[in-house]
Each structure stands twice: as structure tokens, then as C-alpha cells.
């Protein structure tokens, strides 16, 4: 078989998704009724499940065109996660306020998913940029989908303008990196002689690229779009932005930094910082954690609270990236997947509450435990998991993340270089419990002022929310369910081995990954 056919075979999941999207578009030409919407949704789910089966069916590891398209256990795992998250979003969409042009809405979700999956499966700067745009452009449209809502339009415009500028930054940054090193593949970048990394032009390129990614994962100071988009966009769109797009974004950021730019890290050790992406990432992480958690304290809309919480959570995950080793990558992947499931569930609850009570302000949640005890319990699970309280998955994820970051630059005499970041993260994590509890106070403690509405029939969204809550609980009791696959997948990421070997020869301390004592 020639390589083009092989490429088709290994990109089958993406091709199937594209075909499904086109089919959904055609099927959407018939008049939109409740039953036709169900048909469209089933079509989407069918396509998604086929794509997932394809993903599992070809277990080979391949690397096309020098890293343009890569399929290995790690990418397969992340692609699967993205696919599941997108399909859940599609189900949410069926129960949401998006009634007009439902087929196009589903197709856009699928197109964006293709972008995310390609993003997860590439190790080349050019392809990273293209896939990122493929993800973002459908998301802009999804944000502004409620044509009659000015909030939705405003959110879309904001998202598009900030997104466009950040894409320009990213492209400029990547082109500078290419200009200095002469290569776009991460595997070549990793082999560039270290002297290049001190080139100011190169460092400027790295920082600009990080600004572009900072926008993608909503990290301070590139976060300003997030609260408005989360609040104004149709809830399923916001859920997709907060979950699937984030998983893909973090994987590719991790690959770019810890693979391509592994040697350009510098050091973020307090008092001994050296130029590179590590100190920049450290500052972005600290700022995200502080700003996100503090701003969330004074919000009165649950989706806005989720937005600021997302900013803070991005900060924690960036902290995990700073470990720049296998533990760090596993912890980031575990956390980002758990976070995506949790936030998706929380958005699901918001979607149902919006449907029944007409909004997602805090007071709309009052007395939820009386009218919908199951839903209230699920919201409790999501909020407590986001706050990082055991026995839910968020706690284990955070613990693992923090342990990985702290352990990455620790010496046996008790010196821990990233302690300053950990202190910030842990302190503000304690602060965060306040606003999560405020949400739960409205759900459980304050009785509803309105007369209790009749119990609504069970919806698909409700069932999925319940499943997500069970998953969060199960992953908290037994993290191995997700941790073991991630560990096995990360084990195959070859690039850390080369780096660890290089450091073992150059530095005497075995547990040190960045020079702490210099």
C-alpha cells in the first residue's frame, strides 16, 4: 500500500467524522421537528462511535511525513477522550435552546472535533497551526449561534477578535522559531544545538507562541474572552470550548514545550530563574490561579463562575506542565480529562436549569434539591470535585499534579525549587472552595422562592449528567481506571527518555531535571 492510502487508513476516524458532518448537513435539509432533530443526533452519534471504533481498531503506531500526522497510544487516548467529550456535547445540544439550524450546529461540532483530533495527533508546527484554526473557526460560529441573543453575538465577536489576534501571535511566534532554527518538526527542533536557544529572536518566538496558546487554554493575561463567552454562548458551545478544546490544547502545548523546546526551558526555581519557557509558564500559571480564583468570588452567574474557575484550573494544569517529565505529563492528562468531564457535567446541569427556570444566575439554582434532587446531587459532585475535595476525582488529580510539579526540581537536602508556585496554588485552592460552596449553598440550603415546578421527565442530558457524576466519583475512588491507561500511553512517549538521559550525564543529582543548584 502506498503512503497516501495508509494515511487515509490512519486518518479514518477524522474522515468518518467529516463524512458524518456532511451527511448531517444534507439530512438537515428536511424540515426541523423534534423527531428530525433526534434523527440528526443519532446520525452524529453513530458517526462518532464508528470513528471511535476505528481509532481502537488500528493499534499500529505510525508517523507520517516527519511528524505531520502521528498515531501512537498517547494520541489515541487523547483523541478518544476528545471524541467522547464532543459526543456528550452533541447530546447536550439536542436538549438545549438551539432549535434553528440544528443540523449545522451538529456539523460544526463535528468539524471542530476533527480539528481537535488532528491537533492531538501532530508533531509539526505548521500542522499545529492549521489544526488549531480548524478547531477555532467552528467554535467562533458555535459561540454566536443564538442569532437573536445579543449576549451570544457579543461573545462571538469578542472570541473571534481575541482569537484572531492570538492566532496571529502564534503564527508570528512559530515563524520566528522556524526562522532561527530552520525546521518545523518537533523532532528536529529537539535536536537543535542549545546555543540557538539563547538567540533573543528565538526566545521572542517562544513567548509569542505561548501567548497564542495562553489564549487557547484561557490563561491570564489572555483570559479576558472567557467569562463573556462562557456566559453568552449557547451552553453546549461553552461546554465544548471548556472541555474538548482544552484537552487538545493542553496536549499540544505539552508536546511543543516538553518535546520540541525541551532544552529551551530555562529554570523557574525561585531565586535562580533562567530565561526560557519555564519562568514564563510559571508566571502565567501563578497569575491564572490568583486572578481566576479571586475574580470568581464575586460572580453571580454560575456559567461565569465556571469561566473563572476554568481560568484557575488552567493555572493548575500549567503548573503540571512545568514538571516537564513523564509524571508531569501523566498528571496533566489525568487532570485535564477529569476536569473536562467535570466541567461538562456542570454545564449540563446549567443547560437543564436554563431550560426549566430560564437562566443560570445563582438564584435560578435555589431550592434545586427539592425540585430535582438527583440533579442537585450531581451538581454537588461536580463542584466538590472542582474544589479538589476527596473522595472525588478532582482531588486525586490535583494532588498528582502538585506532587509532579514539586518533585520535578527537588533535591535530597530538602530544597524544592517550585515550592513558591505550590504555595500559591494550594492557598488559592483553599480560597476556591468558597465560591463552589456558594453555588452549593444555593442548590441545597436556600429554599426556592418560586412554587415547586412539576417534576420534569427524564432527559438524555440528565442521564448523561448522572453518568458523568458517577464517573467522577468512580475515578476518585479508584483513579487507576484512568491513570493506568494514561501511564501506559505516556510510557511510549519516547522524547522524555532522550532528555532524561542527557540530563543524567550532565548533572549529578538524579532527581533534578532542571539545574537547581547553579
Amino acid at each position, binding site marked *: 500500500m502506498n503512503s497516501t492510502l495508509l494515511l487515509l487508513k490512519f486518518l479514518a476516524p477524522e474522515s468518518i467524522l467529516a463524512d458524518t458532518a456532511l451527511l448531517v448537513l444534507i439530512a438537515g435539509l428536511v424540515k426541523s421537528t423534534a423527531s428530525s432533530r433526534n434523527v440528526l443526533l443519532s446520525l452524529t452519534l453513530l458517526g462518532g462511535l464508528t470513528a471511535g471504533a476505528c481509532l481502537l481498531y488500528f493499534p499500529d503506531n505510525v508517523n507520517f511525513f516527519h511528524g505531520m500526522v502521528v498515531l501512537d497510544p498517547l494520541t489515541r487516548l487523547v483523541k478518544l477522550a476528545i471524541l467522547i467529550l464532543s459526543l456528550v456535547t452533541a447530546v447536550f445540544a439536542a436538549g438545549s435552546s438551539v432549535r434553528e439550524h440544528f443540523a449545522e450546529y451538529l456539523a460544526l461540532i463535528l468539524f471542530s472535533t476533527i480539528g481537535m483530533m488532528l491537533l492531538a495527533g501532530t508533531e509539526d508546527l505548521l500542522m499545529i497551526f492549521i489544526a488549531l484554526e480548524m478547531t477555532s473557526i467552528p467554535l467562533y460560529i458555535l459561540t454566536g449561534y443564538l442569532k437573536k441573543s445579543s449576549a451570544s453575538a457579543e461573545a462571538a465577536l469578542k472570541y473571534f477578535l481575541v482569537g484572531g489576534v492570538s492566532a496571529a501571535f502564534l503564527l508570528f511566534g512559530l515563524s520566528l522559531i522556524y526562522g532561527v532554527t530552520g525546521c518545523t518538526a518537533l523532532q528536529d527542533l529537539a535536536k537543535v544545538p542549545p546555543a540557538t536557544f539563547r538567540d533573543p529572536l528565538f526566545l521572542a518566538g517562544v513567548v509569542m507562541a505561548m501567548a497564542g496558546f495562553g489564549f487557547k487554554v484561557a490563561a491570564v493575561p489572555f483570559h479576558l474572552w472567557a467569562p463573556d463567552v462562557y456566559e453568552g454562548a449557547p451552553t453546549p458551545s461553552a461546554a465544548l470550548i471548556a472541555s474538548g478544546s482544552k484537552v487538545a490544547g493542553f496536549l499540544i502545548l505539552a508536546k511543543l514545550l516538553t518535546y520540541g523546546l525541551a532544552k529551551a526551558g530555562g529554570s523557574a526555581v525561585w531565586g535562580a530563574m533562567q530565561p526560557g519557557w519555564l519562568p514564563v509558564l510559571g508566571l502565567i500559571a501563578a497569575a491564572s490561579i490568583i486572578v481566576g480564583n479571586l475574580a470568581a468570588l464575586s460572580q453571580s452567574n454560575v456559567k461565569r463562575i465556571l469561566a473563572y474557575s476554568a481560568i484557575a484550573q488552567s493555572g493548575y494544569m500549567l503548573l503540571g506542565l512545568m514538571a516537564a517529565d513523564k509524571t508531569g505529563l501523566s498528571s496533566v492528562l489525568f487532570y485535564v480529562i477529569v476536569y473536562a468531564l467535570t466541567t461538562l457535567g456542570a454545564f449540563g446541569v446549567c443547560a437543564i436549569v436554563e431550560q426549566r427556570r430560564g437562566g443560570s444566575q445563582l438564584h435560578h439554582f435555589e431550592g434545586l434539591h427539592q425540585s430535582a434532587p438527583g440533579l442537585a446531587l450531581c451538581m454537588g459532585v461536580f463542584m*466538590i470535585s472542582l474544589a479538589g*475535595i*476527596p*473522595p472525588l476525582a478532582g*482531588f*486525586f488529580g490535583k*494532588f*498528582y499534579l*502538585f*506532587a509532579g510539579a*514539586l*518533585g520535578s526540581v*527537588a533535591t*535530597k*537536602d*530538602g*530544597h*524544592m525549587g517550585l*515550592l513558591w508556585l*505550590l*504555595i500559591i496554588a*494550594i*492557598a488559592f*485552592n*483553599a480560597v476556591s*472552595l*468558597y465560591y463552589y*460552596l456558594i453555588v*452549593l*449553598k444555593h442548590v*441545597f*440550603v436556600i429554599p426556592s422562592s418560586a412554587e415547586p415546578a412539576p417534576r420534569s421527565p427524564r432527559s438524555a442530558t440528565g442521564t448523561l449528567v448522572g453518568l458523568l457524576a458517577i464517573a467522577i466519583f468512580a475515578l476518585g475512588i*479508584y*483513579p*487507576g481506571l484512568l*491513570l*493506568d491507561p494514561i*501511564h501506559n500511553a505516556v510510557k511510549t512517549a519516547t522524547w522524555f527518555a532522550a532528555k532524561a538521559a542527557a540530563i543524567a550525564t550532565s548533572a549529578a543529582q538524579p532527581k533534578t531535571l532542571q539545574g537547581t543548584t547553579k
Partner: protein
Amino acid sequence: MLTATLLSTFLGIALICLLPSRFGGAAKWIALLSALTGFGFAVAAFQGYDMRPGVYPIQSIINLPWVEKIGIGFITGADGISLILLLLTGIIAITGILFSWNVTHQPRAFFALFLTIIFGVYGVFQSLDLFLLFVFYEIVIIPKYFLISIWGSTNREYGAMKLTIYSVAGSALILLGLLGIYVLAPEATFNLLSLAKYKFPVAFQLWAFPVMFLGFGILGGLWPFHTWAPTGHVAAPTAVSMLLAGVVMKLGSYGALRVAMTLFPLGLDYWRMPVAILATVGLLYGALVALAQRDLKFVVGYSSINHMGFVMLGLVTLNTLGLSGAVLQMFSHGIIGGLLFAVVGRMLYDRTHTRDISQLGGMGLTKALPFAALTFTVASAASMGLPGFSGFIAEISILLGTWKAFPVLLIFTMLGVVITVAFTLRALQRTFFPAHNADAPTAETAHEPFDPITLPERLGALILMTATVGVGLFPKILLDPILRSFESPQSLMHHLIQGVAK
């Protein structure tokens, strides 16, 4: 036997959750049954504790892998200290449920959350894996918030939020220390038994000890981080006040002893004096503030600060007398504090709807509620540390230990003992035996006759009174296992009485 306490409590929670809402009244019976079996298992474990010399002091160890990839295990086991606190948890669980027999608002949720706290507390007292211990420790936090903010009284939302934020701040400090321990340990493990053998770097111990000790100390009511306790106690429903004072505060002092003091002997040596001073200030401060309160529940709340000050002081004396006295005081205060809160919150407040001492004094309570008066008198006598009650043995041991370790602080401690007697007598006398209008209620305080004290209340009070008198008369039952846990050369805490710096 040990893990059966967890299992029976968990079964109780599960059954209550599965209960259909029209059978909500059955929740308390399930809870009581689950608490009784839990206590039964704790007693069985206590009975089975082997105290022969040479036998390893930590017994019935279970070691199961949990998250093997990063060295987390489900490791439980108990020495004498754990066993005594498990017994205390069982007693407080049973009596707490008896004293909340009148809860009718969402009984299923109330008892499920109540048992969740008990579950967490049982777990902490038997965990030998630090991660597991922390998980159980944190499980306790969220139910407290809901129990207080939904079923509480005075200023409940404020009290609940304050208590939760303080608890989480404490947990944050503990988490920081825990991460440091994990990162610096020679192997990736949270197993306390292996970590205790390792000498952590001095630079780390010097900051990790105060961080972890404070983290646990916040929950243990250590001055000046105690302010959550009085407001939280006052806002909480009776059973939760009993839980907070009875066992949750003990989680703090237990964690300080089991984790901070065991793992960081050098840090302990360095910070010993500051901790002793904070404990003494807390002990005096709690007593003095209690002397000035008009609200009877605040008196009991501040008396908890006072008694926990004794515990903290006893812990840092680092001699057998002080340490064993501190552990005994944990048990003793758990029982007495529970009893006091039961009288104030359930027997008096639920009937009179006031806790103001002067108003209560005008009601002729000795006539109206003789059983409450009797119980409060017994509890006060125990709280003052009269001989014959558990508090006496505990406090006298701590005082003797302090004499050896910190002779100067002993002066202040003795002063604290005197003020304790003063505030307890003041509260007792003004509430039940006011000097002026003997037993004739005046016109303004005239009231409807109170409901008589119910059977569950009498039962609960009797259990607690029996416990404090029993331990007061036969302290050996508890002291032997405690001493064994410190004196056995194989003990994790043997170095504490050997001189920590060695």
C-alpha cells in the same frame, strides 16, 4: 475488626441513601444500628489489643494496594491511641444520634451526612497511609458545612462557612507538608510505617513541622486559630456540636501527634517552646473568655478551647506523663464536651429556646428539668477535673508532665485550672442554682411547662456519664494501651519520650 467500623458505617450511609422518602423516619434507626455495630467492632478491636511486651504495638494491619503507580496504599492498623479514639468515636456516634432523635427536617440527609462524618473520623484514626489519612480527614469537611447551614441555629450560614474555610485552610497547610514528604521520601510511598524510619532533611523539617502542626492545630482549636470553634459550635445542631467538640477537634490533635510530631522530630525540637506557649495562652484565653459569656453554648464552646489547650500542651511536654495525659484528655474532653453540648443544645435550648444564662436562671430549671440539672452538674464536675471523673486523671498527668518540661509555664497552667473551675461553677450556678429567686419563676419568665426529657436523651446522657465516671474510677483500662503505644521500643513514637533530637 478495625475496618469493620468503616464498613458498618458505610453500609449505614448506603442504606439511608437508598431509603425511599416516605420511610424517612426509619433513617434514625438505621443510623443508630450502624453506629452501634461500629462501636461494637471498635470495642472488639480494643479487646483484642495484645499488650504483651515484645508484641508490635501497631496491630491488625491491613495493607492493600490502591493507586500502586504512585505508591498509595489502603493501609490501616491501630495502636492504643488509635483504639481509644475509635472507642470515643463510637460512643459519640451513638449518643449523637440519640440526641438528634427529634430531627424531622430531611432526616435522611441529616443522618447520612452525620454518618459520613463518623466514617471519615473512623478512617483518620486507623489510617497508616498518609494519603488515605488525608482523604478521610477531608471527607469530614463538606458534611459539616451542610449539617450546620441547613439544620443549625444562631447565625448558621456564617458559622458554617467560617468553620469550613478554617478547616480548608488547615487542610491546605497539611497538603503542602504532605507533598513535601512525598517528594523528599527515599521511595514513592505514603506508608507511615516506612516514612517514620526516614530522617527528613533538617531544612525541610524546620518549615514542615510548623506548617503541618498548625494545619492540624487549626482543627484542634490551637490559639490563635481557634475562632472557628465557638461560632461553629454555637451555630451547629446539637449532634454536630457534639461531633465537633467530641471527635472532630481530636482529629487535629491526633494528626499533630501522629504525623507532624512523629515524622519531624528535629522540627519539633526547634518549635517546641512556641507551641507550648501558644497552647498555654489558648488554655488561659479559653477559660477567661468563657468566664465572660452570657450565652451558655459559648461557655461550653470556649471551654473546648481551654481543654484542647491542655491537650496541645501535654503533647509537647514530650514525657510519658504529659503525652499519655494528653491522649487521655482527648478521650475525656470528647465525652465531657459531648455531654455539655447535649444538655445545652438539646435538653435546654430545644425546650426553652434561649441560651442566655440569666434568662435560663430565671426559669427554675432544677424543678422543671431535674434530669438536665443533674446531667449538667455531673458534666461540670467532670469538666472541672474533680477526682473520680476522667478529666482529673488526664489533667493531673498533663500538669505533672508540664512541671517536668516547662516549670515556668506551670504557673500559668495552674492559673488556667483555677479559672476553669471558676467559669464552670459560674455557668452551673447561674443557670441552675441562681441565688436570688430560688425556684419561683417571676412573671416575666413564666413559661409553659417544658416537655419532659425523653428516653433517648436520658439514655444518651447515661452512656456519656458512665463513660466519664468509669474512666475516672478505672483509668488503667485506657492508660495501659496508651502507655504501651509510647513506651514500646518498636513504637513509632518511642523517640518522643527518648528525647527527640537524638
